């Protein structure tokens, strides 16, 4: 089935863990930044999968909730070495950020920031920038999702109701469930006709 089966199995598990550990340790921002690096390691460097197989697995990873970089490591690990491979690859992806953040949580406590005037000033500058970094993907994801004048009320209503912090209606899970159900109902009943996508790759929400 795969070229990889001829390789020594125990060492491949270790290589799998090591490769994803390296990817987890050196990519900032997660998601799409990580995907191109994973592709380079898996397809170009180790030749574990060909490009087509990789894109098929990417489609699987994208179709599911959760953290994209972890999902893709799970499918790649599973394809190469089954359940043990998927656990090794997922742990590899998770471990670097887990260790770094744990160290930060232990030593950079909120009190450390508030009791240090220099750190307080630095974080006062950083916080509004972080808000801006979240405003930017609102605009880019609206464009990528093809939100127009007819559909822009949906994200607007969803955002305002979550922001309201009112009981029940401020729960994001409600809108994820409703969005999926409405999309499914309207499409299967033929009330909304979706353009056919050839690959389905651009179908998954980013």
């Amino acid at each position, binding site marked *: 089935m795969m070229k990889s089966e001829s390789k020594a199995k125990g060492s491949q598990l270790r290589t799998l863990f090591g490769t994803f550990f390296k990817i987890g*340790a050196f990519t*900032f*921002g*997660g*998601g799409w930044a990580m995907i191109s690096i994973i592709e380079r390691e898996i397809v170009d460097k180790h030749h574990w999968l060909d490009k087509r197989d990789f894109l098929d697995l990417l489609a*699987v990873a994208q179709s*599911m*909730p*959760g*953290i994209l*970089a*972890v*999902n893709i490591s799970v*499918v790649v690990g599973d394809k190469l070495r089954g359940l043990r491979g*998927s656990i090794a690859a997922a742990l590899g992806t*998770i471990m*670097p*950020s887990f260790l*770094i*953040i744990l160290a930060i*949580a*232990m030593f950079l*406590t909120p009190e450390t920031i508030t009791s240090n005037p220099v750190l307080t000033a*630095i974080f*006062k500058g*950083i*916080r*509004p*920038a*972080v*808000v*801006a*970094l*979240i405003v930017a993907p609102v605009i880019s994801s*609206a464009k990528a*999702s093809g*939100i127009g004048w007819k559909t822009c009320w*949906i*994200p*607007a*209503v*969803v*955002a305002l109701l*979550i*922001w309201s912090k009112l009981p029940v209606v*401020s729960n*994001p*899970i409600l809108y*994820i*469930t409703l969005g*999926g*159900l409405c*999309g499914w109902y*309207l499409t*299967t009943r033929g009330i*909304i006709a*979706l353009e056919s*996508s050839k690959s389905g790759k651009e*179908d998954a929400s*980013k």
Partner: protein
Amino acid sequence: MIFLRLIWSYLKIGLFGFGGGYAMLALIENEIVTPGWITERMFTDIVAISQMTPGPIGINSATYIGYVAVTNDPSGMFASPIWGILGSVLCTLAVVLPPFLLVLYAGHYVARHHDSAAIRGIFAGLRPVVVGLIASAALLLMNKANFGETSPDILKSIGIAGASLCAVMFTKIHPIWVIVAAGALGFLIF
């Protein structure tokens, strides 16, 4: 018990975490910040730290919040770092467990049928919601904890936010450098 409640929250965040890290922030707000396990300010700081350290934001926030929420538990029973580390491990595993199982056992089915009306309809319905989730995370963070309480502070903060937004939208500057620059500017003007 705080561990079970945290695990339950992170299982939900993992299970409904469609649309990537920024959309997940809306879920984390609702599950973690609203019940008061961490403050608004700490939440923004975690997002900032996540942007400056490698790895996905979903993992970073689970690890950090697991530690901080457990060690700051009002009962004071779990203040020792050992409990914090346990909280980190449990939250991180909880956020990856639902997608891990779904990817392994349902992913191939969904990918095979991605051209069916049902699956395409579900994703088409999720897309505008995901935009709304990211927008709500941005709105929720536009608060006193992040923009200050006095008018000079608010004006300076709006200036930094505006400049940062222009930098990420109109240039190819990496977000890490935007945060580093904002931190340096904060040091100079606050």
